[in-house]
């Protein structure tokens, strides 16, 4: 019985540590991609425009908002505040990114996703749609983990609500 509860504690600790790594990892992803986009708004506009989904007035707003949405998600994950809701929003944003890349691929556009800066039209043979989608799905795994099990170490959530996460 003693051994059993010890094993449970150890397993819980291990899961907490994995969650912590995932939380900080996803925070890093959002902070880097948000920062790169925020520091070159013109390039971000070109990147969003290249997906050829939105009317240009909306492109302008989306290109203006997206970097700061990413930065906000990054900061919240970094400090571990509202991990569950932040993870849920991260999932939505990542799914939207995957959908955007997938529609470009399906329609035969030749663009760079502009995920971490850059973006816009590229030569026909230079597209990397499978890799871009695979990378986003990798990030999605981190977000889903935190959505299901938001309990992590070094998080504001642990101080606010003892049960960790919302």
């Amino acid at each position, binding site marked *: 019985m003693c051994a059993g509860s010890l094993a449970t504690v150890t397993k819980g600790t291990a899961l907490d540590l994995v969650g912590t790594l995932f939380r900080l990892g996803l925070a890093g992803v959002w902070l880097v991609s948000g920062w790169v986009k925020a520091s070159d708004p*013109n390039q971000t*506009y*070109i990147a969003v425009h290249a997906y050829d989904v939105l009317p240009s007035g909306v492109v302008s707003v989306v290109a*203006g*908002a997206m970097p700061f*949405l990413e930065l*906000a998600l990054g900061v919240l994950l970094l400090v571990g*505040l509202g991990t569950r809701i*932040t993870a849920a929003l991260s999932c939505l944003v990542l799914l939207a990114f995957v959908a955007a890349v997938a529609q470009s691929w399906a329609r035969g556009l030749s663009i760079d996703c502009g995920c971490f800066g850059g973006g816009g039209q590229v030569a026909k043979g230079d597209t990397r749609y499978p890799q871009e989608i695979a990378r986003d799905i990798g990030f999605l795994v981190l977000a889903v983990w935190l959505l299901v099990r938001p309990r992590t170490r070094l998080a504001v959530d642990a101080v606010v*609500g003892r049960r960790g996460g919302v």
Partner: protein
Amino acid sequence: MGGAERSARKRRQNQAVTRTAPVAAARKAGSNRNPVIVGVLVVVIIAAAVIAGVIYSNSKKNSTESAAIAVQQVSLSVPATRDGAVVTVGKDTAKATIDVYEDFLCPICGEFEKTYGPQIEQHLADGTLRVRYHMVNLLNDRSDPAGYSTDSANAALLAADAGKFYQFHKSLFADQPEEGARGWSKDQLTALGNSLGITTPAFAAGIQSGTYNQQITDAYNQARSNPSLQVDIGNGQTGFGTPTIAANNKTIDTSAPTWLTTLLAN
């Protein structure tokens, strides 16, 4: 007496219980309320970041709204005549003629002008070179808001009608908006013309109405489908791009710095 004392003690005990109960209830409610507060806080933080971000990006984009396009004067006295969407600059007696396809928003065109503009200007002045400028609107949807390529090309053609094409063209490339950024507005283009001494009402009215917009689009479509203007765009594919320089119906590779002297020598 004894009974009353007992019942009084019991009452106090009951009071003590009811007194601690609300605290426990509040504590319980508090642990349920925290997630809600955190959720609201997260939504507020994200909304604030997004709104502040949009305002910041917009104000950064619109920072050129009150600016004036810097004026570039030239001391070039060669004819410049407009025919459709093409402006021919230089003397008829020039032994070489080149076709230059440019978009006022295209950054590589800006670099081309910066690198070779002075050389071209010098050969225009000494009468050895004639240049046919084709201002295309390839990047029309790459400014925010869209439309700068067409507006600027149209304004340049109207400037040609007023005898100020070369200065106008030079000024727009010297003070070029970035792709994805706000282009110069129609009013700013008009103001540039005014600074260059264009006072005809037709100029300002033509910029507003887009006199040559259709001709510019037609000329661009023609150039785009012209087989002799296709260049290598990487990966073994060809296409039309800007800047494209051509002479005698053949494109010229301008990556070699001596391309113009080579052309004029032959």
